[in-house]
């Protein structure tokens, strides 16, 4: 049995039936990390003590013949923007280099309560700000499919770890595409749930009205199992919704025949790579052969999504990141004489270039005289973008698009041009602004063997439908590739 390529159910069953142990599974993943991660850089911190203690607990349950919880013994990775009690949490930033949170993020606590074994914390762009993982203050992550290319971002470590079999599933966060775009670049599944579906308590805030926690996985079913684990109201996050979550795993096997899928021309225009277009169009054809009806829809405000996003996200970030002042936690500059000098120098030394750029942009957009022209204007366009989806979802059950206009680009290719980097999120940011769920699943490769992602967007709180469509597509493409090989 290859211990590093198991699904959640296979791993749990193998431990339950005593064919292996949670301990052996964790050790096999650490061995794999030891062997692979030097060149990839997906992990920032390993939590071996915590992992083996949990593995031991699971193994004792298995030995006693007790039924294991849904993630019993499953090795997972947590993006380093989620707080973990007693385990260093950096948000990919030097300013939190030595920060050890005194409490757990709700999503992490729910994963561990369900038996998950936390292997460590995943590398990411600093404060989740980036689309390539080159903004990590520690090291860039490399794409396991081609080491000269980026894994996407900001949850690049979470995606790359799966592509290199260094974890079974991971948690990421998505503010403008940060789960779906790296999933697409690394050839794995990435699910951004509806805003409010998963508690944000313990997530280091980037843009509070846009931040989402969600799973990355090697299969749609594994993503569904993780969502089932972390979804639901949490009194510690007043924006977590009081909307019951169905059993997403049961949803997977419901039929897709007769579903209406929207295709919007705005997602197939200028800038879309020809190979990506071709792969996504043939994926849409495949969904049609599964009995889905393809319906043209219009999302006319799409071209305004990126500017809207960069005003709102940076405005919120500038407020959220004001807390890093060198007083209660975070880096403090040495040799400062006054409080004000301490704030400035500590932040100057602690934050990287992109974070400073976004704080500056957000502060500018909120400053007296510019608030109406930028922030208020962007909030109004956010309403229009959300109405586009409301309108479209009157006619269709889900919308299918490419996840990203291109496959993974090279390290350094966009790092000197912030605007070009921002455009990598052109097909993903709108869902964050509207608060609707979206999933990215692999739908083929370029000639250079780089993965391509298909994005399926759904109605608010209708993760069940997009998971079901993604699962059906995955099943068909699995049987095709099996027949072809």
């Amino acid at each position, binding site marked *: 049995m290859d211990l590093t390529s198991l699904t959640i159910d296979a791993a749990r069953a193998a431990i339950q039936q005593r064919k292996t142990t949670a301990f052996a599974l964790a050790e096999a993943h650490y061995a794999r990390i030891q062997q692979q991660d030097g060149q990839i850089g997906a992990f920032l911190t390993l939590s071996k003590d915590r992992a083996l203690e949990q593995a031991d607990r699971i193994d004792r349950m298995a030995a006693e013949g007790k039924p294991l919880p849904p993630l019993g013994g499953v090795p997972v990775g947590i993006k380093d923007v989620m707080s973990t009690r007693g385990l260093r949490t950096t948000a990919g930033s030097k300013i939190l280099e030595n920060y050890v949170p*005194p409490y757990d993020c709700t999503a992490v606590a729910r994963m561990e309560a369900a038996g998950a074994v936390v292997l460590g914390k995943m590398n990411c762009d600093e404060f989740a700000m980036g689309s390539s993982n080159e903004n990590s203050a520690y090291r860039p992550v490399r794409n396991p499919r081609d080491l000269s290319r980026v894994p996407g971002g900001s949850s690049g470590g979470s995606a790359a770890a799966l592509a290199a079999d260094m974890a079974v599933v991971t948690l990421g966060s998505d503010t403008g595409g940060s789960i779906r775009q790296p999933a697409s670049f690394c050839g794995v599944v990435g699910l951004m749930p509806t805003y409010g579906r998963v508690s944000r308590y313990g997530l280091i805030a980037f843009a509070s009205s846009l931040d989402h926690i969600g799973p990355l996985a090697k299969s749609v079913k594994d993503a569904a199992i993780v969502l089932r684990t972390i979804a639901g109201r949490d009194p510690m996050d007043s924006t977590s*919704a009081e909307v019951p979550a169905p059993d997403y795993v049961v949803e997977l096997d419901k039929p897709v025949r007769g579903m209406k899928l929207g295709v919007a021309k705005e997602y197939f225009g200028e800038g879309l790579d020809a190979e990506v277009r071709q792969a996504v169009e043939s994926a849409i054809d495949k969904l049609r052969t599964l009995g889905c009806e393809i319906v043209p829809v219009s999302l006319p405000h799409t071209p305004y999504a990126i500017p809207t996003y960069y005003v709102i996200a940076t405005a919120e970030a500038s407020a959220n990141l004001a807390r890093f002042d060198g007083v209660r936690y975070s880096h403090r500059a040495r040799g400062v004489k006054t*409080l004000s000098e301490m704030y400035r120098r500590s*932040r100057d030394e602690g934050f990287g270039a992109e974070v*400073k*750029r976004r704080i500056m942009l957000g502060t500018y957009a909120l400053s007296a005289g510019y608030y109406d022209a930028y922030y208020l204007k962007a909030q109004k366009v956010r309403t229009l973008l959300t109405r586009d989806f409301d309108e479209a979802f009157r006619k269709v059950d889900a919308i299918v698009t490419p996840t990203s206009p291109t496959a993974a680009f090279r390290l350094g290719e966009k790092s000197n041009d912030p605007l070009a980097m921002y455009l990598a999120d052109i097909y993903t940011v709108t869902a964050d602004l509207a608060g609707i769920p979206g999933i990215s699943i692999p739908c083929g490769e370029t000639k250079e063997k780089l993965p391509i992602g298909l994005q399926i967007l759904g109605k*608010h709180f209708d993760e069940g439908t997009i998971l079901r469509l993604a699962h059906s597509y995955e099943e068909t493409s699995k049987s095709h590739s099996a027949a072809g090989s």
Partner: protein
Amino acid sequence: MKVTDKDVAYVADLANLELSEQERAAMLRDLNSILDYVDRLNELDTSDVAPMAQVSDRYGVDVSKQGSERFAYASREDVVEGLRKSLPHAEALANAPDADEDFFRVPKVIER
């Protein structure tokens, strides 16, 4: 150019960022390039559009109520030990760059 040197210095001041001369030059270039792009929002007439601050307005809200009553689902008793116990001092101070047993220590606030 929308943003001037002076604006960059002013905004850096508001944001408590001390930027080097090099950083200020790069910021001037980048902010102008990004804001030029953001300007395309002005192509849209939004005079009759309400601003959207958050997604949460769309669910869980009791539309028959007024003001904060609308968000009753998210409210709780205002008590000292509400959802979570306060951290013990030692734990709360553990990440501080400088602290004594009970307080965070910072450089002098009043200059005189």
